[in-house]
């Protein structure tokens, strides 16, 4: 069985898993863990779009 994800979907899934682990391990209270996990996810996704636009600008 082979899984073929697009680059965007692979990056999105990566962001979800990494954010969950960062949130749980880097903060102490449940509320802070959720907030930090969401913050990391937003940063990952923001980074994906930023990198995408930078590559588009380099290409054009």
């Amino acid at each position, binding site marked *: *069985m*082979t*899984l*073929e*994800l697009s*680059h965007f979907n*692979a990056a999105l*899934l*990566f962001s*979800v*898993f*990494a954010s*969950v*682990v*960062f949130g*749980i*391990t880097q903060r*102490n*209270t449940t509320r802070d863990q959720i907030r930090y996990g969401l913050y990391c996810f937003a940063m990952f996704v923001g980074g994906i779009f930023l990198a995408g636009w930078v590559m588009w600008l380099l290409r054009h």
Partner: protein
Amino acid sequence: MPNPAARQQNAAKAEARKGASSEPLTTMSVIAPAVAWLIPGAGHLIQKRWMRGVLLMASIVSMFVLGLLMQGRVYRLNGGDILDILGFVGDVGAGGLYIVTRAMNWGKGAIAHATADYGTKYIIVAGLLNFISVADAYHIAIGKKP
């Protein structure tokens, strides 16, 4: 002769060193990191952090399995290129998952698939995330984290 401010600073440093070395070495502080490395998330589960353990396990195992399904490559112990050595270090972090994968001879890597490279990175990062999880389990065991 050191001035009073410097003496006070030295005393504070000595106190901090004493505090760092007086962390209790309990059975749990040895077992939890070992179990956490072998089975991702289990170090939290044995300390009754159920939700955290389940979420860590789900995230790390999913990432590793998805990496394998994408035909990612699992690094073997090697003394070659520095990136290959670091890849091996990352992979080993997944503990039991890495051992099973090697035993079953999975993770050969397929150059034919464009996503295989993503898979290789997924597997390495799953191992690295498990290293963070191991450190967290240890901090819980010594009482540094609730």
